[in-house]
């Protein structure tokens, strides 16, 4: 670490870590739970100096296992997270959990109820659970969830589990946050077509059909397996064709199969479809095994490195975007241009585009030009 850097954008903290954050860092590094809890608040609220704090913490690399659990509301995410945590604790491993629930767009408030399913874990010293409100973020995580995972990782938890908001079809931000993504569905989730269209197909490393003691579970497992094979191009591998013509018998698929099983190591990751009953813990050992297997697979194939690099790049992009936004809207000059210009827009002598351009030039200097615009454009 090369000393502290000034906290960009931290208005009240001109240089690096203030006294208060320095004391917090000490408590954090001493392994005090309260230190972690307050550090999370610092980051979650983007209080002055949070960037410098993260910088100080993250310059020591730690690579815990980050497992994301996602799925529709009521799929049993919290219960499964609790069951998984319990199982890791039985092996003596410490677990940190982040559970994200939605913020009301109307009141800005949130009811965070995931702890209800984890009550027995609350007083276990080897477990740390934090609830986060999504605070307007739409990707299934809160804006700062990834940073909070970093903090937990840096604190030294070997397992960091993150549970998303109950997702529908577009909240797929979890892929940028976890090494292994577990998608949880229930027999009531509908058929696998729902999962395919939901984009959940693309993000799952492991599928779990929870509440598997209910009717329809086996059907969903089969559907999911078929959908996975369709994606992998190996569908119908073991399925007899219609009208009783078994292609296997005619040898049509033999060559294809020989190709796919060539070598000892499988080329790609075959997404397992597991059945669990989170409430009783049934199927949880198999899920743990699959998570471990996926991790080994990622390590063996360099995928882990790749995911982490992609994650790092994404994070840099996030930070730049956030700081740009902050810089833009906290700039006095920008406010002036905006206030002076809206009347002109109403009078149609300016447009949102011309005004935005003026603002961007003010922010980025006279040399700035909208990408893709060559020459003098000759526009309006």
């Amino acid at each position, binding site marked *: 670490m090369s000393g502290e850097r000034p906290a960009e954008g931290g208005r009240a903290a001109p240089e690096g870590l203030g006294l208060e954050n320095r004391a917090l860092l000490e408590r954090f590094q001493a392994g005090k*739970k*309260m230190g972690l*809890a*307050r550090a*999370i*608040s610092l980051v979650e*609220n*983007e*209080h*002055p100096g949070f960037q410098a704090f993260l910088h100080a913490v993250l310059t020591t690399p730690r690579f815990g296992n980050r497992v994301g659990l996602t799925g529709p509301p009521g799929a049993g995410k919290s219960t499964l997270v609790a069951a998984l945590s319990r199982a890791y604790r039985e092996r003596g491993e410490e677990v940190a959990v982040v559970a994200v629930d939605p*913020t*009301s767009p109307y*009141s*800005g*408030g*949130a*009811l*965070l*109820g995931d*702890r*209800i399913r984890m*009550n027995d874990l*609350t*007083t276990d010293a080897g477990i*740390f*659970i*934090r*609830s986060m*409100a999504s*605070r*307007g973020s739409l990707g299934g995580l809160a804006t700062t969830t990834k940073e909070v995972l970093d903090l937990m990782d840096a604190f030294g938890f070997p397992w960091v589990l993150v549970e998303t908001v109950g997702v529908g079809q577009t909240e797929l931000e979890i892929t940028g946050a976890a090494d292994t993504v577990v998608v949880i569905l229930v027999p009531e989730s509908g058929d696998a077509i729902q999962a395919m269209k939901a984009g959940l197909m693309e993000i799952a490393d492991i599928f779990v059909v929870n509440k598997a003691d209910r009717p329809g579970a086996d059907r969903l497992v089969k559907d999911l397996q078929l959908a996975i094979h369709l994606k992998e191009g190996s569908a119908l591998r073991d399925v007899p064709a219609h009208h009783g013509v078994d292609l296997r018998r005619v040898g049509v698929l033999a060559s294809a199969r020989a190709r796919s099983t060539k070598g000892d190591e499988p080329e790609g990751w075959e997404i397992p479809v597991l059945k669990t009953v989170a409430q009783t813990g049934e199927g949880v050992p198999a899920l743990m095994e699959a998570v471990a297997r996926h991790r080994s697979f990622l390590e063996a194939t360099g995928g882990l490195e790749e995911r982490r690099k992609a994650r790092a790049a994404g994070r840099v992009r996030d930070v730049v975007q956030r700081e740009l936004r*902050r810089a833009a*809207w906290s700039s006095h000059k920008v406010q002036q241009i905006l206030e002076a210009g809206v009347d002109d827009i109403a009078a149609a002598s300016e447009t949102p585009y011309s005004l935005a351009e003026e603002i961007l030039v003010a922010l980025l200097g006279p040399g700035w030009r909208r990408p893709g615009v060559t020459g003098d454009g000759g526009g309006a």
Partner: protein
Amino acid sequence: MPEGDRKIRVLVAKPGLDGHDRGAKVIASAFRDAGFEVIYTGLHQTPEMIVSAAVQEDVDVVAMSVLSGAHMTLFPRVMELLEEAGAEDVLLTGGGIIPEEDMRALQERGVGRLFGPGTATREAVAYIKEWAAGRRERGG
């Protein structure tokens, strides 16, 4: 986007063995509608569970609903554990069937305002907002 503007985080907890959580649920919803972030832990919490959750969640306020008559043990115990955990800056408040003299006695021991049956939820909301604003002024 009001950055750096800290949301008020409240733990709503129901300690003890009685199963009457309607009050806790009503107050949790009211707090959410007031823009608070409410961590709801459900029934049958021990003081240890409540404080442990309060620390991990770094809440500003712990609001307990006590209908069992055990308030004279539960509130002081939670108070004590909060102090032990270094979370003495957390406001401990609550409600339930608590005689006024007990309310006064608890407040003398550092517990915040306590609300009896029939309290309008906005009263509790206003109290917490006021407390938070006061703390911000004090630089907390």
